């Protein structure tokens, strides 16, 4: 008992001394401690446990809050901050002291002369030997800049994702031009044929019907391509999951890549899967994944400059799933990059060519479908696979 009393008296004395810091009666060890605290780059404060009055406040704290030591020592939060904020600080302090433990406040806003700052604060209970709380020690790191940087990075990430999507759209554009040119040629020819016949007064019903029929059919074909393009350039994230034939998903990508392969002399082979093979998916997003894999394959083959370049697209069935396979005889993967290729922003493509987002976004989409993207090195080139669970209709399951 006697010892405890002595200890408390000692601490009280110390507390008192701390309160009267300016009386220049600091002991050597106090001075030593004081110097260390003042050199720390982060705000450190100590409050006594009973009234939560400040007993210590270092230089970094003075600078951050714009309050001097003289102004703060002996005061509590209500003397310094608006009531609402003081309430919040005090409640937290009490909680820490009651629980006698360390509490981390990830980010708390505070008004300072430099505007609103965000602090990452640790509040620590300092107890006596009997575990009675004596002081509350606070260490605050100003994380305002980190927070700003984080927001900036998020913003840039979003922009990059957007630009990745636009790149993909750009790559599709040249293919689409041809995909539309063909039907346009048909419409133009039909019209000119009709005009010629009419000019020669030889336009009979049969010719009129046939030509108009072709025009109508071909206009629909163009409209379908345009609708597909519009579908493709949107997000599709909130689309419902629907049971569809895998062949439909694959077909949806063709207008955007088939011509591109043809133009560059890359042999594109697709083995159409059975119409009965169905999966439950967001068609737009999954088509974007397939197109992404096809575009990667295109780039891999183009890079080799070989004349016998090919890209094969097919689907294989297993007991519970389907595997969509995209195989190429392009540059292939090197072992060092294999672990990184699914990571966001990783790319082996030349600067400005790839964003490094395609595969990571694709992997995310496939994961949302309960599937997975895998790849393996081939003797030449690479084979990517998208494994997706089979869709089994309820009545069939019974």
């Amino acid at each position: 008992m006697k010892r405890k009393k002595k200890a408390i008296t000692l601490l009280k004395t110390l507390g008192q001394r701390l309160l009267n810091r300016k009386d220049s009666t600091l002991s050597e060890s106090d001075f030593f401690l004081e110097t260390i605290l003042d050199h720390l780059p982060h705000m450190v404060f100590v409050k006594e446990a009973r009234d939560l009055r400040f007993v210590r406040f270092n230089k970094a704290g003075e600078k951050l809050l714009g309050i001097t030591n003289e102004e703060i020592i002996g005061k509590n939060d209500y003397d310094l901050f608006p009531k609402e904020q003081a309430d919040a600080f005090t409640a937290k302090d009490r909680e820490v002291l009651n629980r006698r433990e360390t509490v981390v406040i990830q980010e708390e806003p505070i008004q300072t002369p430099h505007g609103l700052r965000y602090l990452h604060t640790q509040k620590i209970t300092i107890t006596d030997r009997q575990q009675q709380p004596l002081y509350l020690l606070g260490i605050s790191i100003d994380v305002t800049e980190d927070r700003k940087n984080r927001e900036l990075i998020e913003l840039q990430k979003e922009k990059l994702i957007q630009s990745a999507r636009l790149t993909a759209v750009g790559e599709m554009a040249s293919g689409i031009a041809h995909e539309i040119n063909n039907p346009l040629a048909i419409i133009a020819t039909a019209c000119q044929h009709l005009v010629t016949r009419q000019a020669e007064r030889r336009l009979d019903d049969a010719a009129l019907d046939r030509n108009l029929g072709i025009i109508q059919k071909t206009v629909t074909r163009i409209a379908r391509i345009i609708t597909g393009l519009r579908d493709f350039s949107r997000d599709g994230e909130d689309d419902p999951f629907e049971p569809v034939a895998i062949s439909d998903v694959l077909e949806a990508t063709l207008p955007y890549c088939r011509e591109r392969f043809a133009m560059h002399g890359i042999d594109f082979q697709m083995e159409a899967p059975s119409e009965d093979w169905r999966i439950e998916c967001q068609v737009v997003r999954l088509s974007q994944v397939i197109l992404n894999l096809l575009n990667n394959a295109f780039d891999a083959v183009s890079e080799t400059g070989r004349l016998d370049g090919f890209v094969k697209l097919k689907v294989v069935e297993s007991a519970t799933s389907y595997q969509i396979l995209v195989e190429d005889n392009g540059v292939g993967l090197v072992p060092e990059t294999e672990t990184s290729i699914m990571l966001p922003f990783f790319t082996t493509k030349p600067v400005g060519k790839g964003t490094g987002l395609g595969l990571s976004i694709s992997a995310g989409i496939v994961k949302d479908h309960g599937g997975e993207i895998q790849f393996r090195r081939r003797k030449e080139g690479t084979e990517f696979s998208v494994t997706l669970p089979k869709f089994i209709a309820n009545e069939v399951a019974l």
Partner: protein
Amino acid sequence: MSGKKIYIVDDEGDLAELLQMHLEDMGYHCQREVDSRTALEQLDTVRPDLLITDVQMPYVSGYALIEKMQQISPETPILVITGFAHENKTAAALPQVTTLQKPFNLSELVERVQSLLPIS
């Protein structure tokens, strides 16, 4: 009727049909084929006076047809119609080959055909 025969090969079936209609109006005898494999087999039997062909087609490319045509009958003119500018150039360098880029004006096609294979 001149009895001059044109073989039209294009995987765009409607286009081939329209060309046939129009050229037959002009007095040509036309035969068309959408499957380039069949066209390659039939070329020797059809023996056209003019071959009109696309280049990018599934299975067999227009180049294979051009090569075959030149083996069978080196003097037969060939009109290549394609949507790809670079293939227009490649094809135009071949003997007997004239090119026309899609989408073309029908009157342009008629002019080419008439100069390659005059009626009468």
